C-alpha cells in the first residue's frame, strides 16, 4: 500500500470515526414480485457494526441479504425502522467491471468519479496492482482476466472509493476453491492494512467465521436475525482449527433452529 494512500485514508477515518459504523434498528423491507404481490424480504432486523469491525451476515439463499446491503448503501429505503451509517460502497456479487475499460481504469473508476484526472487516478490505482498480483494486466480488458483477478480488480475499485463502510455481497462465492482461499487470505491482509467497517454477506458459514469479528445468522425469507456470534479468535484463522469448527457448528445450529421455527 503506498504511504500516500495510507495517510490519506487515516485522515478520512479520523474525520469519520464517529459515523464510520453501521446501525440498523428494527428494519423491515418488502418488495413487489412480478405478480404485484408484496413479499417481505427483511423483518425487524437490528444489526450493528462498530467502526472498523467486520460483520458477516450468513443465511440461506433468499434471506434478503442483498436487500440488507442495498439498504446500508442507500440504494433502498426501509419500510420500517432506521438505517444509520456512514458513506458506504457496495461490492456486488457479480464483479460488474465495465467491459469497455481496462483493468486499471476499472480499478480507478471511483477516483475518476471523485473528480481526479485520468492520469492521477491511474497512478494511484496502478500503485496497488502489483500487490494484488495483477501486475502486467493493467491494460487487459475484463474478459481477458480470470475470475479471481476480476474479483480482485472489483475489490480494488471498492477500496479506492475510500468510503468508510464496505458492503461485500458474496465476494468469493463465484470462485473456485483454490482461488477463494487465496483471495480470502488476501482480503484479511488488506483489511488489516486498510481497516474499514465491513458488512460481508455470504452463505458460507466457514468463510464468515474465518473473516469476521462477529457473525449474524439470518433466517429464510423474511430475513430475521436468529443469532449473533462473536468470533474472538486470533488471526490468521484456518478453517480447520478446532475453535473455528466449534463456532461453525454453533452457527449452523442457529440456522437449523431457525428452519424449525418456521
Amino acid at each position, binding site marked *: 500500500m503506498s504511504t500516500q494512500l495510507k495517510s490519506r485514508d487515516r485522515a478520512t477515518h479520523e474525520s469519520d470515526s464517529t459515523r464510520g459504523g453501521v446501525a440498523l434498528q428494527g428494519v423491515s423491507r418488502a418488495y413487489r414480485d412480478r405478480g404485484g404481490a408484496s413479499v417481505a424480504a427483511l423483518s425487524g432486523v437490528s444489526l450493528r457494526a462498530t467502526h472498523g469491525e467486520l460483520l458477516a451476515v450468513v443465511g440461506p439463499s433468499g434471506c434478503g441479504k442483498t436487500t440488507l446491503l442495498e439498504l446500508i448503501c442507500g440504494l433502498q429505503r426501509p419500510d420500517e425502522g432506521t438505517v444509520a451509517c456512514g458513506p458506504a460502497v457496495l461490492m456486488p456479487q*457479480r464483479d460488474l*467491471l465495465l467491459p*469497455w475499460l481496462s483493468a486499471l481504469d476499472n480499478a480507478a473508476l*471511483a477516483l475518476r468519479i471523485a473528480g481526479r484526472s485520468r492520469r492521477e487516478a491511474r497512478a494511484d490505482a496502478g500503485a496497488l496492482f502489483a500487490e494484488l498480483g495483477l501486475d502486467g494486466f493493467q491494460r487487459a480488458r475484463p474478459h481477458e482476466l480470470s475470475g479471481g483477478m476480476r474479483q480482485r480488480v472489483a475489490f480494488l475499485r471498492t477500496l479506492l472509493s475510500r468510503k468508510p463502510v464496505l458492503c461485500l455481497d458474496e465476494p468469493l462465492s463465484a470462485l473456485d476453491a483454490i482461488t477463494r482461499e487465496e483471495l480470502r487470505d488476501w482480503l484479511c491482509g488488506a483489511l488489516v492494512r486498510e481497516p474499514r467497517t465491513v458488512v460481508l454477506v455470504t452463505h458460507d458459514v466457514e468463510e464468515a467465521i474465518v473473516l469476521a469479528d462477529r457473525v449474524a445468522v439470518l433466517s429464510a425469507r423474511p430475513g430475521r436475525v436468529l443469532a449473533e456470534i462473536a468470533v474472538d479468535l486470533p488471526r490468521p484463522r484456518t478453517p480447520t482449527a478446532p475453535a473455528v469448527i466449534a463456532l461453525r457448528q454453533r452457527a449452523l445450529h442457529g440456522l437449523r433452529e431457525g428452519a424449525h421455527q418456521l
Partner: protein
Amino acid sequence: MTRRLLHALPAAALALALVGAWEGYVDLGLVNPIVLPAPHEIASVAWSNAGLLAANLELTAQEVGLGVLLALLFGFVLGVLIHLSPALRRAVYPLAVGSQAVPIALIGVLLVFWWGFGVLPKLFVIVLICFFPVVVTTVDGLSAVDPDQLKLLRTLGASRWQALRFGELPAAVPAALSGARIALAVGVIGAYIAETSTATSGPYAGLGHQINADINGLQTPRAYAAAAVLFLFAIACFYTLALAERVLAPWAHRPRGESR
C-alpha cells in the same frame, strides 16, 4: 490472406451467378436491351464514361458522408436527450416517427427556396431519412444498461451525469453503431432521393441526378452503370463502418464481460 479470399468466395460466386443469369436473360432476347441492358454493355459504357461517373460519385459520396455524419450526431444527441427526459420522449418520438413518412418530393421545392441549389437541401434530406434508426438504437442501447451497473456507479458516488458518462454512453455505443450501419445503408438511397427531389446547378449533379437524366434520355446502359457505382459504394460504406466499429467498440465483438 488465403482465408480472407475464401471468406469472400461465397459473395463473389453469388454475384457472378446473378450477373451470369442476367446476361443470359438479355442475350437470349427475352427482354429489350433498352429496358434492361446486358451486363457486358453496362460495363463497357461504364468504362467509356469513367470520368463522368467518378465526378458524380465524388459529389454523391460527399453528400452521403457529410449527411450520414450529421444524422449520426443529431440522432445520437437526440437519443440521449430522449433517454434523459421522459417528457421529451413523449414530445419528440411521435414527430420523429412521422418524419419518416414525409414525401421528400413535396418539400424539395421548399428546401431549394430556403437554401438554394447547393448541397444544403440535399444534406437536410439525407439527415431526415437517416437520423431515425440512430435515435431508436441509441435510446434502446442507453436503456439496455445493466441496472446493477448503475447501482454500482451510484454507490461509488457517481452523479447523474457521471453515470451517463461512465456507464450508459459507452454501453450504448455498440447499439448506436448498429444504427449507424442502417443509416449509412439508407443514406445512399437517401442521396438519390435528395438529388432527384431538389434542383441542382453545376456540371456534375451527383449519381442520382445522372440516373434520372439518363432514364429520361433513354441512355439506360449509363443509368445502370451509375446505379452499379452506387451499389458498390453502399457496400464499401457498410464494411468501412464495420471496420470502424472494431476500433470504436472492441468489447462488443467479444462475449460480454460479466459472465465467466
